[in-house]
Protein backbone atom coordinates (compact mmCIF):
# COMPACT_ATOMS: atom_id res chain seq x y z
CA UNK A 1 0.00 0.00 0.00
CA UNK A 2 2.91 2.27 0.77
CA UNK A 3 4.21 1.59 -2.72
CA UNK A 4 0.83 2.44 -4.23
CA UNK A 5 0.69 5.70 -2.24
CA UNK A 6 4.15 6.61 -3.39
CA UNK A 7 3.18 5.99 -6.99
CA UNK A 8 0.15 8.23 -6.72
CA UNK A 9 2.30 11.03 -5.37
CA UNK A 10 4.65 10.60 -8.32
CA UNK A 11 1.78 11.48 -10.60
CA UNK A 12 0.85 14.64 -8.70
CA UNK A 13 2.23 17.97 -9.89
CA UNK A 14 3.70 19.96 -7.04
CA UNK A 15 4.28 23.29 -8.77
CA UNK A 16 2.12 25.22 -11.17
CA UNK A 17 3.31 24.53 -14.73
CA UNK A 18 3.75 27.64 -16.85
CA UNK A 19 0.90 27.90 -19.30
CA UNK A 20 -0.31 30.94 -21.17
CA UNK A 21 -3.95 30.49 -22.21
CA UNK A 22 -4.38 31.28 -25.88
CA UNK A 23 -8.17 31.26 -26.01
CA UNK A 24 -11.01 29.70 -24.09
CA UNK A 25 -9.39 26.27 -23.83
CA UNK A 26 -9.12 26.41 -20.05
CA UNK A 27 -12.81 27.17 -19.60
CA UNK A 28 -13.82 24.51 -22.09
CA UNK A 29 -11.66 21.93 -20.38
CA UNK A 30 -13.09 22.80 -16.96
CA UNK A 31 -16.60 22.55 -18.34
CA UNK A 32 -15.87 19.14 -19.84
CA UNK A 33 -14.38 18.00 -16.53
CA UNK A 34 -17.47 19.06 -14.64
CA UNK A 35 -19.67 17.30 -17.18
CA UNK A 36 -17.42 14.21 -16.97
CA UNK A 37 -16.74 14.32 -20.69
CA UNK A 38 -13.55 13.03 -22.30
CA UNK A 39 -11.44 15.56 -24.18
CA UNK A 40 -9.44 15.29 -27.36
CA UNK A 41 -6.60 17.79 -28.02
CA UNK A 42 -5.71 18.31 -31.66
CA UNK A 43 -2.72 20.28 -32.84
CA UNK A 44 0.76 20.26 -34.33
CA UNK A 45 3.68 18.93 -32.40
CA UNK A 46 5.25 21.21 -29.82
CA UNK A 47 2.38 23.68 -29.65
CA UNK A 48 1.61 23.11 -25.94
CA UNK A 49 -0.93 20.27 -25.72
CA UNK A 50 0.94 18.32 -23.08
CA UNK A 51 1.78 21.43 -21.12
CA UNK A 52 -1.91 22.35 -21.19
CA UNK A 53 -2.92 18.99 -19.73
CA UNK A 54 -0.28 19.36 -17.03
CA UNK A 55 -1.58 22.80 -16.23
CA UNK A 56 -5.17 21.60 -16.04
CA UNK A 57 -4.12 18.65 -13.89
CA UNK A 58 -2.52 21.09 -11.46
CA UNK A 59 -5.48 23.49 -11.63
CA UNK A 60 -8.05 20.74 -11.01
CA UNK A 61 -5.80 19.14 -8.38
CA UNK A 62 -5.94 15.77 -10.08
CA UNK A 63 -3.07 13.34 -10.58
CA UNK A 64 -1.92 13.05 -14.16
CA UNK A 65 -1.00 9.68 -15.70
CA UNK A 66 0.54 10.18 -19.13
CA UNK A 67 0.92 7.34 -21.63
CA UNK A 68 2.98 7.94 -24.75
CA UNK A 69 1.27 5.78 -27.34
CA UNK A 70 3.16 3.74 -29.93
CA UNK A 71 2.34 1.02 -32.42
CA UNK A 72 3.38 -1.81 -30.08
CA UNK A 73 1.15 -0.59 -27.25
CA UNK A 74 -1.27 -3.38 -26.33
CA UNK A 75 -4.52 -3.27 -24.37
CA UNK A 76 -2.72 -5.11 -21.54
CA UNK A 77 -0.08 -2.39 -21.43
CA UNK A 78 -2.89 0.08 -20.76
CA UNK A 79 -5.18 -1.77 -18.35
CA UNK A 80 -2.78 -4.19 -16.63
CA UNK A 81 -1.61 -7.80 -16.61
CA UNK A 82 -0.56 -10.66 -14.40
CA UNK A 83 3.16 -10.70 -13.71
CA UNK A 84 5.47 -13.02 -11.77
CA UNK A 85 6.71 -11.62 -8.46
CA UNK A 86 8.81 -14.20 -6.62
CA UNK A 87 6.76 -17.40 -6.50
CA UNK A 88 3.51 -15.55 -6.94
CA UNK A 89 1.50 -14.42 -9.91
CA UNK A 90 0.19 -10.98 -9.10
CA UNK A 91 -1.99 -8.52 -10.95
CA UNK A 92 -0.27 -5.30 -11.98
CA UNK A 93 -2.50 -2.35 -12.87
CA UNK A 94 -1.68 -0.57 -16.09
CA UNK A 95 -1.45 3.22 -16.22
CA UNK A 96 -5.04 3.63 -17.38
CA UNK A 97 -6.39 1.50 -14.54
CA UNK A 98 -4.20 3.41 -12.10
CA UNK A 99 -5.65 6.71 -13.25
CA UNK A 100 -9.23 5.38 -13.19
CA UNK A 101 -8.91 3.97 -9.69
CA UNK A 102 -7.27 7.15 -8.40
CA UNK A 103 -9.81 9.42 -10.03
CA UNK A 104 -7.09 11.29 -11.91
CA UNK A 105 -6.54 12.41 -15.47
CA UNK A 106 -5.43 9.73 -17.91
CA UNK A 107 -3.64 11.36 -20.83
CA UNK A 108 -3.00 9.22 -23.90
CA UNK A 109 -0.49 11.22 -25.91
CA UNK A 110 -0.37 10.69 -29.69
CA UNK A 111 -3.15 8.13 -29.41
CA UNK A 112 -3.28 7.73 -33.19
CA UNK A 113 0.01 5.85 -32.96
CA UNK A 114 -1.57 3.04 -30.91
CA UNK A 115 -3.10 -0.02 -32.58
CA UNK A 116 -6.79 0.34 -33.35
CA UNK A 117 -7.76 -2.65 -31.18
CA UNK A 118 -5.96 -0.96 -28.29
CA UNK A 119 -7.86 2.30 -28.60
CA UNK A 120 -11.15 0.41 -28.46
CA UNK A 121 -10.36 -0.42 -24.81
CA UNK A 122 -11.06 3.18 -23.86
CA UNK A 123 -14.55 3.23 -25.37
CA UNK A 124 -16.46 2.12 -22.23
CA UNK A 125 -14.72 4.89 -20.31
CA UNK A 126 -15.84 7.56 -22.72
CA UNK A 127 -19.60 7.14 -22.71
CA UNK A 128 -22.07 7.33 -19.90
CA UNK A 129 -21.00 3.92 -18.54
CA UNK A 130 -17.58 5.28 -17.47
CA UNK A 131 -16.27 1.80 -16.73
CA UNK A 132 -13.03 -0.01 -17.45
CA UNK A 133 -13.42 -3.80 -17.93
CA UNK A 134 -10.37 -5.78 -16.82
CA UNK A 135 -11.11 -8.87 -18.88
CA UNK A 136 -8.13 -10.92 -17.75
CA UNK A 137 -8.97 -10.31 -14.14
CA UNK A 138 -12.72 -10.67 -14.61
CA UNK A 139 -13.35 -7.28 -13.02
CA UNK A 140 -14.98 -4.05 -14.00
CA UNK A 141 -13.57 -0.84 -12.54
CA UNK A 142 -16.10 1.96 -12.29
CA UNK A 143 -14.57 5.39 -12.83
CA UNK A 144 -15.09 7.84 -9.97
CA UNK A 145 -16.70 11.21 -10.56
CA UNK A 146 -13.38 13.05 -10.82
CA UNK A 147 -11.74 10.73 -13.38
CA UNK A 148 -11.11 12.26 -16.80
CA UNK A 149 -9.79 10.81 -20.01
CA UNK A 150 -7.77 13.05 -22.35
CA UNK A 151 -6.24 12.04 -25.65
CA UNK A 152 -4.15 14.02 -28.08
CA UNK A 153 -3.13 13.62 -31.65
CA UNK A 154 -1.63 15.56 -34.49
CA UNK A 155 -3.99 15.87 -37.46
CA UNK A 156 -0.97 16.63 -39.66
CA UNK A 157 0.17 13.04 -39.30
CA UNK A 158 -3.10 11.53 -40.41
CA UNK A 159 -3.00 8.97 -43.16
CA UNK A 160 -5.09 6.04 -44.34
CA UNK A 161 -3.14 3.79 -42.02
CA UNK A 162 -2.93 6.15 -39.09
CA UNK A 163 -6.14 7.85 -38.18
CA UNK A 164 -8.57 7.61 -35.34
CA UNK A 165 -11.69 5.56 -36.00
CA UNK A 166 -14.79 7.67 -36.18
CA UNK A 167 -16.30 5.54 -33.43
CA UNK A 168 -13.46 6.78 -31.26
CA UNK A 169 -13.36 10.39 -32.46
CA UNK A 170 -17.03 10.96 -31.82
CA UNK A 171 -16.74 10.22 -28.12
CA UNK A 172 -14.63 13.31 -27.30
CA UNK A 173 -14.93 17.01 -26.87
CA UNK A 174 -12.31 18.39 -29.26
CA UNK A 175 -10.03 21.33 -28.47
CA UNK A 176 -7.97 22.68 -31.36
CA UNK A 177 -4.46 23.91 -30.69
CA UNK A 178 -2.11 25.79 -32.95
CA UNK A 179 1.06 27.82 -32.59
CA UNK A 180 0.45 30.90 -30.46
CA UNK A 181 0.10 34.39 -31.89
CA UNK A 182 3.48 36.20 -32.20
CA UNK A 183 3.14 38.30 -29.07
CA UNK A 184 1.96 35.35 -26.97
CA UNK A 185 4.68 33.12 -28.36
CA UNK A 186 7.34 35.70 -27.53
CA UNK A 187 5.97 35.89 -24.00
CA UNK A 188 6.17 32.11 -23.71
CA UNK A 189 9.75 32.11 -24.98
CA UNK A 190 10.80 34.74 -22.49
CA UNK A 191 9.18 32.85 -19.65
CA UNK A 192 10.44 29.39 -20.62
CA UNK A 193 13.98 30.19 -21.67
CA UNK A 194 14.77 33.48 -19.97
CA UNK A 195 15.73 35.34 -23.15
CA UNK A 196 14.99 39.04 -23.57
CA UNK A 197 12.08 40.41 -25.56
CA UNK A 198 14.17 41.41 -28.57
CA UNK A 199 15.62 37.94 -28.97
CA UNK A 200 12.24 36.33 -28.38
CA UNK A 201 10.68 38.56 -31.03
CA UNK A 202 13.38 37.61 -33.52
CA UNK A 203 12.85 33.91 -32.85
CA UNK A 204 9.12 34.31 -33.33
CA UNK A 205 9.68 36.13 -36.61
CA UNK A 206 11.89 33.30 -37.82
CA UNK A 207 9.22 30.80 -36.80
CA UNK A 208 6.56 32.78 -38.59
CA UNK A 209 8.57 32.71 -41.82
CA UNK A 210 9.49 29.04 -41.50
CA UNK A 211 5.83 28.15 -40.93
CA UNK A 212 5.13 29.70 -44.33
CA UNK A 213 6.98 26.71 -45.78
CA UNK A 214 4.52 24.18 -44.37
CA UNK A 215 2.99 23.49 -47.77
CA UNK A 216 6.26 23.68 -49.60
CA UNK A 217 8.11 20.63 -48.39
CA UNK A 218 7.94 20.99 -44.62
CA UNK A 219 5.60 18.56 -42.88
CA UNK A 220 5.27 20.89 -39.94
CA UNK A 221 6.53 24.34 -39.07
CA UNK A 222 8.95 24.96 -36.28
CA UNK A 223 7.27 24.31 -32.94
CA UNK A 224 7.13 26.60 -29.94
CA UNK A 225 9.02 23.90 -28.05
CA UNK A 226 11.95 24.15 -30.51
CA UNK A 227 11.94 27.93 -30.16
CA UNK A 228 12.18 27.46 -26.41
CA UNK A 229 15.14 25.13 -26.96
CA UNK A 230 16.79 27.77 -29.15
CA UNK A 231 16.27 30.38 -26.45
CA UNK A 232 17.64 28.05 -23.79
CA UNK A 233 20.79 27.38 -25.82
CA UNK A 234 21.27 31.11 -26.36
CA UNK A 235 20.82 31.74 -22.68
CA UNK A 236 23.48 29.08 -22.14
CA UNK A 237 25.90 31.13 -24.23
CA UNK A 238 25.53 29.49 -27.64
CA UNK A 239 25.83 31.91 -30.54
CA UNK A 240 22.32 32.62 -31.96
CA UNK A 241 22.83 31.29 -35.49
CA UNK A 242 24.43 28.11 -34.18
CA UNK A 243 21.62 27.67 -31.66
CA UNK A 244 18.97 28.15 -34.34
CA UNK A 245 20.71 25.78 -36.72
CA UNK A 246 20.73 23.08 -34.04
CA UNK A 247 17.18 23.59 -32.83
CA UNK A 248 15.27 24.94 -35.81
CA UNK A 249 16.97 24.01 -39.11
CA UNK A 250 18.14 20.51 -38.48
CA UNK A 251 15.36 18.92 -36.42
CA UNK A 252 12.52 19.81 -38.75
CA UNK A 253 13.93 18.67 -42.08
CA UNK A 254 16.60 16.50 -43.65
CA UNK A 255 16.32 18.37 -46.94
CA UNK A 256 19.64 20.21 -47.23
CA UNK A 257 18.28 22.96 -49.45
CA UNK A 258 15.37 23.50 -47.08
CA UNK A 259 17.82 23.65 -44.18
CA UNK A 260 19.89 26.22 -46.03
CA UNK A 261 16.90 28.40 -46.83
CA UNK A 262 15.84 28.29 -43.18
CA UNK A 263 19.33 29.19 -42.10
CA UNK A 264 19.22 32.17 -44.44
CA UNK A 265 16.00 33.25 -42.72
CA UNK A 266 17.77 32.94 -39.38
CA UNK A 267 20.64 35.02 -40.74
CA UNK A 268 18.26 37.83 -41.63
CA UNK A 269 17.39 38.16 -37.94
CA UNK A 270 20.69 37.47 -36.17
Amino acid sequence: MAVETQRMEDFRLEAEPYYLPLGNEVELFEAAYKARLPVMLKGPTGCGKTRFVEYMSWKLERILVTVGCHEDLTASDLVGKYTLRGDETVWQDGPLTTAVKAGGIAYLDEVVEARKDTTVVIHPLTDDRRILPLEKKGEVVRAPEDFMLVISYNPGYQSVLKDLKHSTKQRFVALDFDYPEPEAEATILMSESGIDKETATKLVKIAEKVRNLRTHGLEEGVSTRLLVYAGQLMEGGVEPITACEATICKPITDDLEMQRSILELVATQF
Partner: protein
Amino acid sequence: MYVGRDMLAAVPEERRDDYLRLVEEISDLKYQLGVEVARQLPRMFTEHDDAAIDRYLGQVRAIAVIGWKSGVEVAKQLPDLYHAPDPSIADAYVEIVTDATMGAPDDEETLAFTSELTELERQLREIEPKQQRAQEIKSLLAARDRRDERRRKHAQELAAALPPILARLRPRHREVYLREVRLVAAADPEAALEAANTMLDLLNGERVSHDGAAEWTRRGLDVLEKNREVGRGYFRIGSKFSLEVLEELREGLALRQVARVLKLYATALSGRDVAVRGIDEMSSVDRFGPDHIILPDDMRFFEDDDRNFTAYKVAAAHGAARIEFGTYRFQLTDVPDAIEQLMERYGSKLA
Protein backbone atom coordinates in the same frame (compact mmCIF):
# COMPACT_ATOMS: atom_id res chain seq x y z
CA MET B 1 85.53 -20.00 -89.72
CA TYR B 2 87.80 -21.58 -87.17
CA VAL B 3 91.56 -21.10 -86.90
CA GLY B 4 93.47 -22.41 -83.89
CA ARG B 5 96.18 -20.25 -82.39
CA ASP B 6 98.80 -22.99 -82.91
CA MET B 7 97.67 -23.31 -86.55
CA LEU B 8 98.22 -19.62 -87.24
CA ALA B 9 101.54 -19.66 -85.40
CA ALA B 10 102.75 -22.43 -87.71
CA VAL B 11 102.19 -20.25 -90.80
CA PRO B 12 105.09 -18.05 -91.89
CA GLU B 13 104.28 -14.56 -90.74
CA GLU B 14 104.33 -13.02 -94.22
CA ARG B 15 101.76 -15.58 -95.42
CA ARG B 16 99.30 -15.34 -92.61
CA ASP B 17 96.97 -12.96 -94.37
CA ASP B 18 96.83 -15.28 -97.34
CA TYR B 19 96.24 -18.16 -94.98
CA LEU B 20 93.31 -16.52 -93.27
CA ARG B 21 91.78 -15.44 -96.57
CA LEU B 22 91.99 -18.95 -98.05
CA VAL B 23 90.53 -20.57 -94.95
CA GLU B 24 87.67 -18.09 -94.96
CA GLU B 25 86.88 -18.82 -98.61
CA ILE B 26 86.87 -22.57 -98.10
CA SER B 27 84.82 -22.21 -94.90
CA ASP B 28 82.10 -20.51 -96.89
CA LEU B 29 81.56 -23.85 -98.61
CA LYS B 30 81.29 -25.81 -95.33
CA TYR B 31 82.48 -25.03 -91.84
CA GLN B 32 83.93 -28.51 -91.22
CA LEU B 33 85.82 -28.30 -94.51
CA GLY B 34 87.31 -24.96 -93.43
CA VAL B 35 88.48 -26.49 -90.12
CA GLU B 36 90.29 -29.32 -91.87
CA VAL B 37 91.87 -27.02 -94.48
CA ALA B 38 92.96 -24.64 -91.72
CA ARG B 39 94.67 -27.57 -90.03
CA GLN B 40 96.50 -28.71 -93.24
CA LEU B 41 97.41 -25.35 -94.83
CA PRO B 42 100.29 -24.37 -92.47
CA ARG B 43 102.11 -27.52 -93.53
CA MET B 44 101.38 -26.75 -97.19
CA PHE B 45 102.79 -23.23 -96.81
CA THR B 46 106.07 -24.58 -95.49
CA GLU B 47 106.39 -27.61 -97.76
CA HIS B 48 104.93 -26.46 -101.09
CA ASP B 49 104.76 -23.48 -103.37
CA ASP B 50 101.67 -21.46 -104.25
CA ALA B 51 100.88 -23.55 -107.30
CA ALA B 52 100.67 -26.67 -105.17
CA ILE B 53 98.47 -24.87 -102.70
CA ASP B 54 96.13 -23.74 -105.45
CA ARG B 55 96.06 -27.28 -106.79
CA TYR B 56 95.26 -28.59 -103.30
CA LEU B 57 92.46 -26.15 -102.70
CA GLY B 58 91.03 -26.68 -106.17
CA GLN B 59 90.88 -30.46 -105.73
CA VAL B 60 89.35 -30.16 -102.25
CA ARG B 61 86.77 -27.64 -103.45
CA ALA B 62 85.84 -29.81 -106.45
CA ILE B 63 85.06 -32.82 -104.31
CA ALA B 64 83.44 -30.79 -101.55
CA VAL B 65 80.92 -29.39 -104.00
CA ILE B 66 79.60 -32.86 -104.73
CA GLY B 67 80.00 -34.19 -101.17
CA TRP B 68 81.35 -32.14 -98.31
CA LYS B 69 82.17 -35.13 -96.12
CA SER B 70 84.32 -36.62 -98.90
CA GLY B 71 85.84 -33.17 -99.30
CA VAL B 72 86.86 -33.11 -95.62
CA GLU B 73 88.51 -36.52 -95.90
CA VAL B 74 90.29 -35.56 -99.12
CA ALA B 75 91.52 -32.30 -97.54
CA LYS B 76 93.00 -34.37 -94.72
CA GLN B 77 94.70 -37.04 -96.94
CA LEU B 78 95.91 -35.05 -99.96
CA PRO B 79 98.98 -33.31 -98.42
CA ASP B 80 100.48 -36.73 -97.62
CA LEU B 81 99.74 -38.06 -101.11
CA TYR B 82 101.59 -35.08 -102.65
CA HIS B 83 104.74 -36.60 -101.15
CA ALA B 84 104.20 -40.00 -102.80
CA PRO B 85 107.01 -41.18 -105.11
CA ASP B 86 104.59 -41.30 -108.01
CA PRO B 87 103.17 -37.77 -108.39
CA SER B 88 100.16 -39.08 -110.32
CA ILE B 89 98.86 -40.97 -107.31
CA ALA B 90 97.33 -37.87 -105.76
CA ASP B 91 95.38 -37.05 -108.93
CA ALA B 92 94.22 -40.64 -109.28
CA TYR B 93 93.09 -40.61 -105.67
CA VAL B 94 91.06 -37.48 -106.28
CA GLU B 95 89.46 -38.95 -109.40
CA ILE B 96 88.46 -42.13 -107.58
CA VAL B 97 86.95 -40.25 -104.70
CA THR B 98 85.19 -37.88 -107.11
CA ASP B 99 83.65 -40.74 -109.04
CA ALA B 100 82.70 -42.53 -105.86
CA THR B 101 81.05 -39.49 -104.43
CA MET B 102 79.27 -38.37 -107.56
CA GLY B 103 78.13 -41.80 -108.66
CA ALA B 104 77.69 -42.89 -112.25
CA PRO B 105 78.48 -40.05 -114.63
CA ASP B 106 75.26 -40.73 -116.54
CA ASP B 107 73.10 -39.92 -113.41
CA GLU B 108 71.75 -36.70 -114.88
CA GLU B 109 68.69 -36.72 -112.68
CA THR B 110 70.85 -36.34 -109.59
CA LEU B 111 72.75 -33.54 -111.22
CA ALA B 112 69.50 -31.82 -112.08
CA PHE B 113 68.27 -32.19 -108.52
CA THR B 114 71.51 -30.81 -107.22
CA SER B 115 71.36 -27.90 -109.54
CA GLU B 116 67.74 -27.24 -108.70
CA LEU B 117 68.47 -27.51 -105.02
CA THR B 118 71.30 -25.06 -105.33
CA GLU B 119 69.08 -22.64 -107.11
CA LEU B 120 66.33 -23.08 -104.55
CA GLU B 121 68.75 -22.54 -101.73
CA ARG B 122 69.90 -19.36 -103.41
CA GLN B 123 66.36 -18.20 -103.73
CA LEU B 124 65.72 -19.09 -100.09
CA ARG B 125 68.70 -17.05 -99.05
CA GLU B 126 67.35 -14.16 -101.03
CA ILE B 127 63.93 -14.49 -99.40
CA GLU B 128 65.33 -14.56 -95.85
CA PRO B 129 65.24 -10.76 -95.35
CA LYS B 130 61.65 -10.73 -96.58
CA GLN B 131 60.76 -13.38 -94.01
CA GLN B 132 62.35 -11.30 -91.31
CA ARG B 133 60.36 -8.26 -92.42
CA ALA B 134 57.20 -10.34 -92.50
CA GLN B 135 57.90 -11.43 -88.92
CA GLU B 136 58.40 -7.82 -87.82
CA ILE B 137 55.12 -6.82 -89.43
CA LYS B 138 53.35 -9.73 -87.71
CA SER B 139 54.68 -8.53 -84.34
CA LEU B 140 53.56 -4.98 -85.03
CA LEU B 141 50.09 -6.11 -86.05
CA ALA B 142 49.81 -8.33 -82.96
CA ALA B 143 50.68 -5.36 -80.74
CA ARG B 144 48.07 -3.26 -82.50
CA ASP B 145 45.56 -6.04 -82.13
CA ARG B 146 46.19 -6.16 -78.37
CA ARG B 147 45.73 -2.41 -78.22
CA ASP B 148 42.49 -2.66 -80.20
CA GLU B 149 41.35 -5.43 -77.85
CA ARG B 150 41.80 -3.08 -74.88
CA ARG B 151 40.00 -0.38 -76.79
CA ARG B 152 37.06 -2.70 -77.52
CA LYS B 153 36.94 -3.72 -73.86
CA HIS B 154 36.75 -0.08 -72.72
CA ALA B 155 34.23 0.66 -75.45
CA GLN B 156 32.08 -2.15 -74.04
CA GLU B 157 32.40 -0.70 -70.54
CA LEU B 158 31.43 2.70 -71.92
CA ALA B 159 28.41 1.14 -73.62
CA ALA B 160 27.24 -0.27 -70.29
CA ALA B 161 27.96 2.89 -68.28
CA LEU B 162 26.41 5.49 -70.56
CA PRO B 163 22.65 4.73 -70.32
CA PRO B 164 22.34 5.30 -66.53
CA ILE B 165 24.47 8.42 -66.87
CA LEU B 166 22.27 9.73 -69.65
CA ALA B 167 19.20 9.07 -67.52
CA ARG B 168 20.62 11.45 -64.91
CA LEU B 169 21.57 14.12 -67.43
CA ARG B 170 19.35 17.19 -67.57
CA PRO B 171 17.74 17.38 -71.01
CA ARG B 172 19.03 20.85 -71.77
CA HIS B 173 22.62 19.60 -71.53
CA ARG B 174 22.05 16.56 -73.72
CA GLU B 175 23.28 17.94 -77.02
CA VAL B 176 26.55 19.37 -75.75
CA TYR B 177 27.15 16.37 -73.50
CA LEU B 178 26.75 13.84 -76.30
CA ARG B 179 28.93 15.87 -78.65
CA GLU B 180 31.81 16.22 -76.20
CA VAL B 181 31.73 12.63 -74.91
CA ARG B 182 31.68 11.40 -78.48
CA LEU B 183 34.83 13.38 -79.25
CA VAL B 184 36.65 11.81 -76.33
CA ALA B 185 35.30 8.33 -77.12
CA ALA B 186 36.71 8.51 -80.63
CA ALA B 187 40.13 9.37 -79.20
CA ASP B 188 40.19 6.95 -76.26
CA PRO B 189 37.23 4.98 -74.84
CA GLU B 190 38.91 4.65 -71.45
CA ALA B 191 39.23 8.41 -71.18
CA ALA B 192 35.65 8.70 -72.43
CA LEU B 193 34.47 6.66 -69.44
CA GLU B 194 36.06 9.23 -67.16
CA ALA B 195 34.82 12.13 -69.24
CA ALA B 196 31.25 10.79 -69.28
CA ASN B 197 31.04 10.86 -65.48
CA THR B 198 32.90 14.11 -65.02
CA MET B 199 30.96 15.94 -67.73
CA LEU B 200 27.68 14.83 -66.10
CA ASP B 201 28.70 16.41 -62.80
CA LEU B 202 30.03 19.55 -64.45
CA LEU B 203 26.93 20.18 -66.54
CA ASN B 204 24.25 19.01 -64.10
CA GLY B 205 26.01 20.90 -61.33
CA GLU B 206 26.12 23.98 -63.57
CA ARG B 207 29.83 24.26 -62.91
CA VAL B 208 30.61 25.11 -66.51
CA SER B 209 28.62 26.57 -69.37
CA HIS B 210 28.16 24.68 -72.62
CA ASP B 211 31.01 26.63 -74.17
CA GLY B 212 33.09 25.96 -71.09
CA ALA B 213 32.43 22.23 -71.40
CA ALA B 214 33.61 22.27 -75.01
CA GLU B 215 36.76 24.15 -74.07
CA TRP B 216 37.44 21.78 -71.19
CA THR B 217 37.14 18.82 -73.55
CA ARG B 218 39.35 20.42 -76.18
CA ARG B 219 42.16 21.00 -73.73
CA GLY B 220 41.78 17.46 -72.39
CA LEU B 221 42.10 16.01 -75.87
CA ASP B 222 45.36 17.91 -76.32
CA VAL B 223 46.67 16.32 -73.14
CA LEU B 224 45.38 12.90 -74.21
CA GLU B 225 47.18 13.12 -77.51
CA LYS B 226 50.50 13.70 -75.79
CA ASN B 227 50.07 11.09 -73.06
CA ARG B 228 47.18 8.64 -72.69
CA GLU B 229 47.51 8.09 -68.96
CA VAL B 230 47.83 11.78 -68.13
CA GLY B 231 44.90 12.50 -70.44
CA ARG B 232 42.70 9.97 -68.64
CA GLY B 233 43.69 11.61 -65.36
CA TYR B 234 42.65 14.96 -66.79
CA PHE B 235 39.18 13.70 -67.67
CA ARG B 236 38.57 12.33 -64.18
CA ILE B 237 39.79 15.68 -62.78
CA GLY B 238 42.73 13.87 -61.27
CA SER B 239 45.33 16.35 -62.39
CA LYS B 240 46.26 19.81 -61.23
CA PHE B 241 46.02 21.10 -64.78
CA SER B 242 42.46 19.82 -65.10
CA LEU B 243 41.46 21.66 -61.92
CA GLU B 244 43.17 24.80 -63.11
CA VAL B 245 41.29 24.68 -66.40
CA LEU B 246 38.00 24.19 -64.57
CA GLU B 247 38.73 27.12 -62.30
CA GLU B 248 39.52 29.23 -65.33
CA LEU B 249 36.24 28.25 -67.02
CA ARG B 250 34.01 28.88 -64.01
CA GLU B 251 31.36 31.49 -64.67
CA GLY B 252 30.07 32.78 -61.35
CA LEU B 253 27.24 31.23 -59.34
CA ALA B 254 24.56 29.71 -61.55
CA LEU B 255 20.94 30.40 -60.62
CA ARG B 256 20.08 26.75 -61.18
CA GLN B 257 22.42 25.80 -58.34
CA VAL B 258 20.55 27.89 -55.81
CA ALA B 259 17.11 28.39 -57.37
CA ARG B 260 15.27 26.12 -54.92
CA VAL B 261 16.92 27.64 -51.87
CA LEU B 262 15.98 31.10 -53.13
CA LYS B 263 12.43 29.99 -53.91
CA LEU B 264 12.00 28.61 -50.39
CA TYR B 265 13.59 31.73 -48.95
CA ALA B 266 11.29 34.06 -50.87
CA THR B 267 8.26 31.90 -50.13
CA ALA B 268 9.04 31.93 -46.42
CA LEU B 269 9.58 35.69 -46.39
CA SER B 270 6.45 36.60 -48.31
CA GLY B 271 4.12 33.84 -47.20
CA ARG B 272 3.19 33.32 -50.87
CA ASP B 273 4.12 30.52 -53.21
CA VAL B 274 6.90 32.27 -55.11
CA ALA B 275 8.50 30.83 -58.24
CA VAL B 276 12.05 31.78 -59.20
CA ARG B 277 12.62 32.23 -62.93
CA GLY B 278 15.72 33.01 -64.97
CA ILE B 279 16.11 36.04 -67.21
CA ASP B 280 15.80 33.78 -70.24
CA GLU B 281 12.13 33.28 -69.29
CA MET B 282 11.47 37.01 -69.01
CA SER B 283 10.04 37.30 -72.50
CA SER B 284 7.36 34.71 -71.82
CA VAL B 285 6.13 35.95 -68.41
CA ASP B 286 5.08 39.21 -66.81
CA ARG B 287 8.22 40.83 -65.44
CA PHE B 288 6.50 41.88 -62.22
CA GLY B 289 4.07 38.99 -61.93
CA PRO B 290 2.53 38.36 -58.52
CA ASP B 291 3.80 34.81 -58.25
CA HIS B 292 7.37 34.90 -59.46
CA ILE B 293 10.70 36.64 -59.19
CA ILE B 294 13.02 37.00 -62.15
CA LEU B 295 16.70 36.66 -61.36
CA PRO B 296 19.87 36.60 -63.50
CA ASP B 297 20.94 33.18 -64.81
CA ASP B 298 24.24 33.57 -63.04
CA MET B 299 25.68 35.96 -60.51
CA ARG B 300 29.26 37.10 -60.97
CA PHE B 301 29.49 40.37 -59.09
CA PHE B 302 32.01 38.84 -56.71
CA GLU B 303 34.89 36.39 -56.86
CA ASP B 304 33.44 33.94 -54.36
CA ASP B 305 30.15 32.07 -54.43
CA ASP B 306 29.17 33.05 -50.90
CA ARG B 307 28.99 36.71 -51.76
CA ASN B 308 27.36 35.97 -55.10
CA PHE B 309 24.72 33.99 -53.20
CA THR B 310 24.20 36.93 -50.87
CA ALA B 311 23.62 39.11 -53.93
CA TYR B 312 21.02 36.61 -55.14
CA LYS B 313 19.45 36.61 -51.68
CA VAL B 314 19.12 40.37 -51.65
CA ALA B 315 17.46 40.31 -55.07
CA ALA B 316 15.13 37.50 -53.98
CA ALA B 317 14.19 39.35 -50.78
CA HIS B 318 13.45 42.45 -52.84
CA GLY B 319 11.25 40.41 -55.15
CA ALA B 320 9.50 38.74 -52.22
CA ALA B 321 8.75 42.14 -50.71
CA ARG B 322 7.32 43.36 -54.02
CA ILE B 323 5.03 40.32 -54.10
CA GLU B 324 4.03 40.50 -50.43
CA PHE B 325 3.32 44.23 -50.39
CA GLY B 326 2.04 44.53 -53.96
CA THR B 327 4.38 47.30 -55.06
CA TYR B 328 3.18 47.20 -58.65
CA ARG B 329 -0.48 46.61 -57.84
CA PHE B 330 -0.87 50.36 -57.36
CA GLN B 331 -3.38 52.02 -59.71
CA LEU B 332 -4.05 55.77 -60.07
CA THR B 333 -7.77 55.10 -59.74
CA ASP B 334 -7.12 53.75 -56.25
CA VAL B 335 -5.74 57.09 -55.02
CA PRO B 336 -9.06 58.58 -53.73
CA ASP B 337 -9.83 55.44 -51.73
CA ALA B 338 -6.28 55.34 -50.40
CA ILE B 339 -6.50 58.97 -49.21
CA GLU B 340 -9.78 58.24 -47.50
CA GLN B 341 -8.33 55.24 -45.71
CA LEU B 342 -5.28 57.20 -44.64
CA MET B 343 -7.43 60.06 -43.36
CA GLU B 344 -9.41 57.58 -41.29
CA ARG B 345 -6.25 56.07 -39.88
CA TYR B 346 -4.18 59.19 -39.26
CA GLY B 347 -6.78 61.96 -39.23
CA SER B 348 -5.34 65.47 -39.04
CA LYS B 349 -1.72 64.25 -38.98
CA LEU B 350 -2.07 63.48 -42.66
CA ALA B 351 -2.84 67.07 -43.51
